[in-house]
């Protein structure tokens, strides 16, 4: 990946300008998912896209590639764990799977909202990690 990269001031400047806004927007999509358009999947996809853009434009050395892969795998697993954990916690407290009202909060409305937030965060982490991992496995230079 590194070898074919040509230094290009246009793409580098624009990417450096846009990537922070993309990442903020991804977090907004995840946090805003239960009120408007967006949600965990879209937010995670935008976040992964920002990291893919960074990898394409600026290139990654072998060390960064290894770190990206490890981080992406950990994020994907943590997202699934968070989703399933919230669902199973609801079952442990006597509700159905993902029955947010059973979560240990005083107000069922608060419990519902925080439950949805947790689920959206889990989906976002899983999607971002999985997409980044797919990119690293297909475009990366490591072959293990």
């Amino acid at each position: 990946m590194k070898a074919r990269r040509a230094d290009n001031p246009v793409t580098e400047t624009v990417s450096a300008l846009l990537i922070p806004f993309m990442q903020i927007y991804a977090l907004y999509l995840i946090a805003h998912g239960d009120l408007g358009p967006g949600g965990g999947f879209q937010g995670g996809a935008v976040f992964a896209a920002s990291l893919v853009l960074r990898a394409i434009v600026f290139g990654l050395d072998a060390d960064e590639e290894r770190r990206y892969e490890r981080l992406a795998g950990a994020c994907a697993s943590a997202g699934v764990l968070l989703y399933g954990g919230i669902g199973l916690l609801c079952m442990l407290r006597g509700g159905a799977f993902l029955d947010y009202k059973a979560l240990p909060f005083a107000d069922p409305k608060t419990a519902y909202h925080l439950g949805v937030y947790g689920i959206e965060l889990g989906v976002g982490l899983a999607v971002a990690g999985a997409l980044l991992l797919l990119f690293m496995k297909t475009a990366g230079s490591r072959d293990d």
Partner: protein
Amino acid sequence: MTEPGLLRTAAAALLLALGCLAMISASVGILRFPDFYSRIHPAGKSDTLGIAFVLAGLMVWEGFTLVSLKLLIILVFMLIASPTATHALAKAAFLDGLKPWKRGGDGA
């Protein structure tokens, strides 16, 4: 959203029509131009112009609200990102050795 009067409706309609015209001409250009470099020319420029016109028309229709501010942010994003993507495409093709089309050369 404040209710648009006759003048604002007409201005919004005119901007939307101009945007549609630019996008249709871009589509025709993409289909009819002879090679890669001349095709990304309408894809990059006329499409950006069309999107700018359409978003400007929607902003005029919407009035001075949060929605039109969001449309303005989208417009600024498109004006920065779309030409950059076209530039990256053209540069990648050039570095890969694709030769520009010439009249009378080989290929359609």
